[in-house]
């Protein structure tokens, strides 16, 4: 599979000598699902912002389908359109992502940006609304939606432009089980439809659900390891080292409280 993104020695610092990311070498292939996992503050969101060209590397190079992504390159209207229309970014905070007055305006925004005729744009918006079960919400203002509804609208707003690459920042965080299940199924379907999916998460069960390739970020803001789902999830030391699993206090029926390694789904491993 050809590379969509290629990152070579990429680093990013918000402040001098205070790196959010450092020495990132990563290739992302066409059509795959890649999970970027790491503890809070490891640089997952920064990495996604770099991939979307929202911020630019302070060192190293980032290539999109062979073209280097720089602030200057994105000032070129033709390249900017080619790049932006290929990538759909679903933010963790749906509130910040939704900026149009109503749900329907959100769904139409991207298609109008691309210059599609009104009928085509409306047809896309209605199809996507049906797929995401938000048809009833079309006339609602976005601030009147629940968290799960906002997430669906945020995904729909991106899907109407049919981007090749979908980037999800913590796609199931803070959602109820039904919405989580819906979104996981949707991501599968979109991948099967040929979309490249990039997900950032610290939920290991999500990685296990997708059985995806995994890039694991350490607390030193660099990629600790890339590998298959099994290679990463079976490496307990790696998961402890990168703060993705840890010890938690645990109470037994006999009132004995002790600590042991715990993960939501991987294992329930006692070390007495």
């Amino acid at each position, binding site marked *: 599979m050809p590379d969509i993104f290629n990152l070579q020695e990429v680093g990013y610092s*918000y*402040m001098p000598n*205070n790196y959010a990311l450092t020495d990132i070498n990563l290739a992302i292939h066409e059509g795959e699902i890649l999970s970027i996992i790491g503890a809070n503050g490891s640089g997952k969101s920064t990495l996604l*912002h770099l991939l*979307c060209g*929202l911020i630019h590397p302070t060192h190293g190079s980032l290539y999109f389908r062979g073209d280097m992504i720089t602030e200057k390159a994105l*000032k070129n*209207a*033709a*390249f*900017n*359109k*080619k790049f*932006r*229309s290929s*990538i*759909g*970014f679903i*933010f963790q*905070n749906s*509130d*910040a*992502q*939704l*900026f*149009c*007055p109503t749900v329907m305006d959100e769904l139409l*925004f*991207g298609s*109008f*940006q*691309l*210059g599609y005729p009104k009928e085509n744009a409306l047809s*896309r918006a209605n*199809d*996507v609304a*049906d*797929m995401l079960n938000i048809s009833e919400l079309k006339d609602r203002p976005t*601030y009147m939606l629940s968290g799960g509804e906002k997430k669906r609208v945020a995904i729909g*707003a*991106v*899907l109407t*432009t*049919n*981007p*090749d690459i979908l980037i999800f920042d913590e796609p199931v965080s803070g959602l109820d089980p039904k919405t989580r299940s819906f979104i996981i199924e949707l991501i599968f*379907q*979109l991948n099967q*439809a*040929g*979309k490249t999916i990039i997900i950032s998460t610290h939920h290991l069960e999500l990685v296990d659900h997708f059985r995806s390739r995994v890039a694991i970020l350490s607390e030193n803001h660099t990629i600790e390891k890339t590998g298959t789902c099994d290679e990463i999830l079976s490496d307990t030391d790696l998961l402890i080292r990168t703060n993705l699993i840890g010890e938690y206090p645990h109470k037994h029926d006999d009132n004995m409280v002790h600590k042991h390694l715990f993960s939501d789904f991987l294992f329930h491993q006692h070390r007495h």
Partner: protein
Amino acid sequence: MIPPFLLHKENFNSENETVKHKLSFIDHTMKNVASFITTSFLQYYTSKKGGLLQAVDARVKVAFMISLAVIINLTQNIPAQGILFLVIFILSVSSKINLLSIYKKALLTGFFFGFLVFVPACLNLFTKGHPIVTLFSFSNEHQWWIYKIPKDIYITREGLNLVSRLTIKVINSVSIVLLITATTTFEGIIKSLSWFKVPGIFLLTLTMSYKYIFVLSTTVEETYFSLKMRWWNRGSVIEAENLIAGRIAYLFKKSWERYELSYQSMIARGFDGTFSFYNFDRLKRIDFAFICISIFIISSILILNFYYA
């Protein structure tokens, strides 16, 4: 079920796309709002650097800043203002502060709010005195209403002296405030003000406003990113303005919700209208040394001011 259009790759041509980026005005505005986060982080990091002023207690620094601001405004001669400028410069260097960040702001403020505002005062129309350069010469004197326009209009030495003094006063006042805020955390400044008996409720409001601006800036930055991801050169400026207006309304609503939540959280924790901050540690040797040096500098400047007056 996946709609059919999502199963095909888009085939639009962007080669001829030459429409000018209509987001430039939003770019600048939102970038500037969002830069508050960077500035706040930067201020936090500079206040933690191992420099001279960073080692001094926040109360001493705030007292020094207030005293210096008073002295700057009392001092009426240029040599004394020059010494104050030098003192602030030395303190900035010894505190490892980025000089450009301080002096760029101070000099710009000095130029706009000092020099440009007061520059007419260097003419003999407003300040009588010894001529330096003649700018215009009329054939006769003119009387217009209550104003008398002399035959020659020139820059006076006294006027130039006055403008220079006022400009340097503005530069010194701004640079000392910037220096102290760059070397003291926001929390340190608030606690110091509380130590100086500024009412707690006022400081609490100030603290909450600061935190709120921080949260608001994060939302603005995320919105800006979201807009940037989905705006591909099409759409009119009016559309963009409508979007921004919508976001402002949204932020207002969010502000209101946050205000309600914060107040409820305060009530839930027993808030009764009074507020006090956790006390400071005792002053250290370096603080006393700094106080002595400050008193020496301030006294010297006052003596110099008296001597030149």
